[in-house]
């Protein structure tokens, strides 16, 4: 029916996933359950990233680089480039971490919903996967070319990644607003 290699791969994947499921279950028993506080903290952390948007915009500002370049000091320019690159990488990694944390919470809670849309969930997962891949490409570009040389390519790539959030709007249309007004402190357990 299937070849030797696919069969061995299938068998190995099943054993590995079974073991992972066991370990995941054991780990979860030690961790506190998901709470609305945990979700709020993730949201606040993300908010904090974008409260500093103006500062982050400066990281990619070519004006600063031109100003330093005009000064003519090689050491200063090198130091400036090094610092900006470090900041850009730090910001991007932090954003990736926050989005991953948010997605993790969403997945942990979404499976309790009574009437989720399979299409929505699959699309969301696909878009999130695209976000992960593209943001890693951006990370690589930042690391290789720095925050000033790669901005055009980065902007193009990131715009594509931005699409993934549009699926959430479709989910929003199916929500009863009266339910949204009431919230609880603890979501699970």
């Amino acid at each position, binding site marked *: 029916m299937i070849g030797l290699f696919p069969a061995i791969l299938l068998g190995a994947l099943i*054993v590995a996933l079974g073991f992972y499921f*066991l370990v995941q279950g054991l780990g979860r*028993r030690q961790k506190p359950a998901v709470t609305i506080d945990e979700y709020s903290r993730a949201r606040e952390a993300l908010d904090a990233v974008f409260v500093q948007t103006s500062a982050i915009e400066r990281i990619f500002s*070519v004006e600063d680089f031109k100003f330093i370049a005009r000064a003519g000091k090689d050491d200063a320019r090198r130091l400036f480039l090094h610092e900006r690159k470090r900041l850009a990488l730090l910001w991007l990694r932090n954003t990736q971490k926050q989005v991953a944390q948010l997605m993790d919470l969403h997945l942990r809670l979404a*499976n309790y919903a009574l009437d989720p849309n399979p299409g929505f969930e699959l699309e969301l997962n696909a878009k999130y996967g695209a976000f992960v891949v593209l943001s890693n490409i951006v990370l690589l570009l930042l690391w290789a070319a720095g925050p000033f040389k790669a901005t055009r390519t980065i*902007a193009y790539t990131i715009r594509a990644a931005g699409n993934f959030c549009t699926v*959430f709007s479709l989910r929003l249309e199916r929500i009863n607003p009266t339910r*949204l007004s009431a919230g609880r402190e603890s979501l699970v*357990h």
Partner: protein
Amino acid sequence: MDTNLIWWSGVALDVAILLRGGWTGLFRKYPLFYVYICCVVVKEVIGMLAYELAPGLYAPLYWPTELATVLASYAVIIEIFRQVLKHNPGAARLAQNLLLLLFAFMLVYASSDILRAGSLSLPRAIVELARDLRYVEGALLLIMLSLFVRYRISVSSNLSGLVFGYTFWVGINIITLALWFLPGNELSVRLRTLLPLSYNVALFIWCLALWAVQPDPVQPHDNEVERDYGLLAAKTDAILARVSKGFVRTMRP
């Protein structure tokens, strides 16, 4: 001697699981799993009787009884699906659709495979059918496990042990069967030993996991979660929209 040891230890573990299941009440909680274990015990007893009393019958009986236990093992898949997703209607609905689709596809594929091999002898056809059914089972299990892991579904220690033992057994079984069908390996003694040995390991895992009743993780009330899912989705939407806009704005040259 070694083969007999593996055989007898397997039966002993089967019986221990059944006895503990009856004693702890887990028999009532996971009935389909225990029915499967009962089927295996019956198969083992038939095999042993044939081996001791009528050795000529052993070989013709082996694959049909193996096929019957492969079919019975689908009950364990149903049990895992029922129990793991009992409190997760969302993930259950997703899994159900995906599994039905995959099952239909694999069944058609397996049937065409059997029809293609129409010229085979009956024992060989049974062997191939048992192998194909195991592959279908493996594919179903893989999809189920992916969903369980992706959606971080919490289960009791009993159930996670049951799932792990089963995945171990099915995974090793698929690998062994694939190797078995390689030309020249049909009579491999090592492969013949590996299969019951891996089954004994699975039985040992089940014995440990199902020795005593473990509490289920506390599950939230469905309606409350539905409300919270809405709240969660709304907030997630707003945040990700902001993240996306911020990202694009920041990176724009």
